């Protein structure tokens, strides 16, 4: 039909990673979608693909998603080699098809790292990040009621840095982007958000040490300062945080009061 509606839709060729489960080999499978609206989000395009697959009695593509508004960090996909796709500071759910052109071929793969085993298709198990967080990413004091806004004076610049670090949604894109499979950007954001603030001081050394032990235990790689992580981060967490963690860890190593105990537990 030569209608004006049609001129607004796109044809998209997809190469999507299909993998039955953790123990089977996966491979890229070709799909073609006509009538993709430029206003669809990337995930909505996958919804359309899945409806089509279900109608054909084929297995739909498994992909993780929840909030679809850029805050939960579920929607992990690598689009043309880039975690969360080509747009900076954007999660996959917030990426729109207008970013692509009619007739494009898009390769979609799961996040890849030893620490993120593929569960199925594009779904990966990223609970290793939870375990790092649980190892030290907290403040263990009774919190009581929310304190008065300005009861503890904190310089605006410091508060801003802590807030920027706390913007991490734990999606794992940093690990996915890193050629070493390193989780340094994630861990450093979590370390920074506490170490910058007065409430985080008491457990400062123990926190960074335990989180790093856990990071190594989970088989994340080491950082070589390539910077792909920060470029891929949908929340634009900066590598300054990694430098801060380097300082925190060095401080714990040299001055840590409970260094020996921390090292042993």
């Amino acid at each position, binding site marked *: 039909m030569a209608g004006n509606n049609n001129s607004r839709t796109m044809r998209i060729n997809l*190469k999507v990673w299909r993998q039955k489960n953790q123990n089977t080999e996966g491979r*890229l499978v070709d799909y073609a979608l006509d009538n993709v609206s430029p206003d669809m989000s990337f995930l909505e395009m996958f919804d359309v693909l899945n409806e089509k697959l279900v109608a054909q009695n084929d297995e739909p593509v498994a992909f993780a998603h929840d909030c679809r508004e850029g805050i939960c960090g579920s929607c992990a996909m*690598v689009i*043309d*080699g*880039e*975690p969360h796709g*080509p747009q900076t500071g954007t999660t996959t759910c917030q990426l729109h098809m207008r970013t692509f052109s009619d007739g494009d071929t898009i*390769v979609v*793969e799961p996040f*890849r*790292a*030893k*620490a993120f085993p593929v569960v199925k298709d594009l779904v990966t198990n990223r609970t290793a990040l939870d375990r790092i967080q649980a190892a030290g990413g907290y403040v263990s004091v009774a919190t009581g009621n929310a304190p008065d806004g300005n009861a503890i004076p904190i310089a605006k610049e410091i508060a801003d840095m802590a807030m920027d670090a706390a913007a991490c949604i734990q999606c794992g894109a940093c690990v996915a*982007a*890193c*050629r*070493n*499979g*390193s989780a340094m950007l994630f861990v450093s954001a979590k370390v920074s958000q506490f170490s910058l603030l007065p409430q985080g001081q008491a457990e400062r050394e123990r926190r960074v*040490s335990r989180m*790093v*032990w856990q*990071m*190594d235990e989970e*088989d*994340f*790689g*080491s*950082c*070589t*300062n*390539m*910077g*792909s992580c920060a*470029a*891929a981060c949908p929340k634009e967490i900066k*590598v*300054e945080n*990694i*430098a*801060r*963690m*380097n*300082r925190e*860890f*060095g401080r*714990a*190593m040299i001055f*840590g009061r409970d*260094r*020996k105990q*921390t*090292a*042993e537990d």
Partner: protein
Amino acid sequence: MSQGILRYLGSTMGRKYIMAISGLVWTLFVLTHMLGNLLIFASADAYNFYAYKLTSNPLIYVAEAALVVFIGMHAATGIGLRMRNSRTKPNLYAVTPKSAKGASVTSKSMIWSGTITLVFLILHLITFKFGAYYETTVDGILMRDIHKLVVECFSQTGYVVWYGVCLVLVGMHLYHGVASSFQTLGINHPKFNNAIKGFGWAYSIVVALGFLAVPFYVFFVKG
């Protein structure tokens, strides 16, 4: 106490401190070595006399031992981390991104620029330090004529090409390495980050060009 420290140094982050500190020691060494080499532009005697002064100081043995230990630690740790990282990231993607989500050529190739540097280093010591021993007299002192050997080597096209390629790789290693080691040691501030990067780039280019100046001078001007 020491047990605690060892656990820290053995972690992936601790091993990076070792990389950065040993790398920086060699970074300083290559600069001084390069500056010493430039004495060839002064005169053959100045060049020989500098080498004589350097090697006749007993402290040279301490310095040499330290350099061997540091390069050994740097290479062993670097290879170890690289092997670990191949395990923690077994597969890359079907498409390599061209944006900043990819990585720079120099940062991706550290293991190769480093390994070839090590091979070069060993052959370099065999060629010069343990190479042909000519003698000369400067100011009445009998000393090694290292200048003669240098001119001999750099008059051969093949040797100049090999030396040139290796020095470009050393420069590439430093191009990423110098700024990277600041970050590893936690030296990072929004105000200074561009200056640190610029310093690393300038440093690597100056070192590489300084080293390359010698063979080009010998081959094209002297030869």
